[in-house]
């Protein structure tokens, strides 16, 4: 019977081809298309298809691991080559603010020479606020005394604009020199300032 045959083609598609996609987020929140029901379970794959998919996936994973290891080795080589420990100087930026502070930029001068003028994206500021530390400058300096001048700009609570600076005279020895600039409002409440720390 034609009717039975036609209907059956549709039934094949609808025949409970497996589980229902469940919501991806918590039940209360808006979950975009998370619960969109899938009729024939589009993921109900044949064993052969799954095998092919897995083989490819495992190949990609193997390659990713090799490329990551290569990147590690190249990262180390690049630093050793371009910024040897004997001359290396790095400046880091971190944030330690209780109130929201929208960092716009950090400007660095080393021995009165402009070396960095970094503009921040929202994503980068967010990462700093959460505890990330950014290496904002990496360069080479001779051993001896040097001066770093740093200025940051941004917007604090109540859309108040801030521009603060700090300077540091430091001695560059034979090992690498690390200087951390922390934008902090710990010292004076709601008044972000630079707190400078030298690392050896």
């Amino acid at each position: 019977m034609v009717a039975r045959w036609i209907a059956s083609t549709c039934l094949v598609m609808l025949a409970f081809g497996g589980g229902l996609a469940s919501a991806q987020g918590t039940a209360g929140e808006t979950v975009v298309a998370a619960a969109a029901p899938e009729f024939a379970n589009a993921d109900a794959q044949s064993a052969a298809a799954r095998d092919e998919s897995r083989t490819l996936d495992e190949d990609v994973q193997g390659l990713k691991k090799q490329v990551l290891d290569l990147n590690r080795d190249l990262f180390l080589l690049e630093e050793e080559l371009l910024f040897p420990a004997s001359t290396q100087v790095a400046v880091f930026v971190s944030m330690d603010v209780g109130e929201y502070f929208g960092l716009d930029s950090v400007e660095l001068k080393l021995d009165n020479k402009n070396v960095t003028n970094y503009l921040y994206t929202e994503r980068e500021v967010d990462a700093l606020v959460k505890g990330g530390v950014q290496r904002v400058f990496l360069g080479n300096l001779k051993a001896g005394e040097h001066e770093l001048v740093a200025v940051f700009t941004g917007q604090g609570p109540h859309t108040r604009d801030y521009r603060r600076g700090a300077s540091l005279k430091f001695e560059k020895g034979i090992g690498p020199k690390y200087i951390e600039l922390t934008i902090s409002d710990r010292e004076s409440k709601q008044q972000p300032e630079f707190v400078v720390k030298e690392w050896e």
Partner: protein
Amino acid sequence: MRARVSTLTAAASVAALAAAPAGARDKHDGIVVQDLAYGEVLFGYFQEDYFTALTRLLAAQERNEIPHHSAEAELMLGGLYLSYGQHRLAGEIFERVLKDAVEPELHDRAWFFLAKIWYQRGYLSEAEAALGRIGGELPEELEPQRQMLNAQVLMDQGRFADALAALQTWKRPGDAWVGFVKYNIGVSLVRLGQVEEGARVLDEVGQMEPLNTELDALRDKANVALGYAWLQASRPVEAKPSLQRVRLDGPFSNKALLGVGWSDAETSDYRAALAPWLTLRDRNLLDSAVQESLLAVPYAFAQLGADKQAADHYTDAIAAFNGEIEHLTASIDAIEHGALITELLGQHPDAAPETSGWYWRLDKLPDTVESRYLYELLASNRFQEGLKNYRDLLQLNRNLDRWSESLGAFDDILDTRQKAYEQRLPKVDESLASVDLDALAARRVELASRLQAIERSEDVVALGTPKEQQTWRTLEQMEPKLAGLPNDSESDELRAKQHFLKGLLLWDLRRDYKARLWAEKKSLGELDRELREAQRRHHQVQSGRDDWPEKFAQLTARIDGLGPRVETLKTTAATQLAHQQTFLQGLAVEELEAQRDRLRTYMVQARFALASIYDRAAAQAGTAPQSPADQALAGAPQ
């Protein structure tokens, strides 16, 4: 630095957060980030730049730059691998790190997220094993997800009895997940052959009061599933009410309308069946239910004896199927030429993706013919996970291209340094040879012993100024001469004057002695420091001079070793990218071919039915009709 990341949250976040973008979390309070390198890793991680974070962490571990965070760094590595879709490596690390001395909650969360990615990538047995490692109950927001994931893993393996057993232990009858649980229970029961029982559960879901769009969709889905279950069981009367509950404007309305028609047709009420089917035939022909309605409508007309209308509708259907088959063939051709990936990624395929890893998901389908045909396939985990790998491979290719260029530059830098070294070498050697540090050191020792002797003998004259010392010597030289003079008043006066002047000078020398001794000692200390600095610099220059050839050789060897690695991986990455593209295109083409095959089958059915009508008409009239339908039939491809 007051840091935002506690040991627990950093570790837990990475493992746990593997499934929730970092942006979803808020500030942390906690202990200090004690190693700058660890902070750098977090900076990359919090921006969801997992590749950079992983590279930095691997380098930091190699250089032992995170001594204060070594424990959580390993877990961080596992979490980052997971975030980057490296589930195998993540699993190995979790296996090792989570075995003991880790908070149970962290342990359970890590295995949950690993199970989730394994499920998405089709590693069902691994996902099941990972879920089995979860010892306790997860936090409130995750526990329902765990239970649903567990059921899905079992159902995807066809183990409906196990899934049913798991689902029936659901402990939260009142929560927002209950509709999904019941739906899966209903599906499992039907698949186990317990249609009556399954239908009862699905009916409950189908009559739930929807609270949001998800529950609306779920209710529709349950009603359609239930309706078709009844149709399959040849019980069309029971099928109809649930199918009629489906919203007319929802994503399941086409299937429902088709089913309602079939439930009427099954009871031979073809007139009633025509109503939903005629509604359907004006809808988008991309939908398989709409395509099927093109055959169902003339079938109903034929059953009602309206052969003329039936023949016209069959003719229309054949034309429509032909048109769709042409579109599908064009789409297959376009996909085989790579159009799909370009459209899906919304950019040139060579462009670098912004983010990578597991979180990324195609959130918007391009409005193209291909993607409209492939909606379900494109939304499936199988395709999405494949597309993620494709994007990651694109990123790897870009990364390797960049390094390939950089290595050439590294070679140039090294050559320049070598030339500079060779040019400076004679000058450096000359300069090193001209400085006799040993002689300087010996001179310093001599000075120190002289000062010691002066101090021991309190030789105040030795610390006098040159003028004082000259005066002292003159006065001393006078003494024998004055002693030889006659004892007269004039000579006595001269001797007394000499004696007075000597005493005066001695008084001055004694007065200044202590200050001078202190100054001399201070000078000696400064000399020591300067000498040490000179020795250090001398040593540095000497080492730099001596070490450079070895350093140069070592750096050259490293660059030489890395070059072939980059090139080999470039070839592999390009090959894998091509494979991945072929795989994704293959999935799409397979899907389109299945749709085209279905349409061809429909067309055969339409022609067969049309021919039967003509035969019947010819038998009745004695001649064959000459209608547009004949022409369509004659011109249709075989």
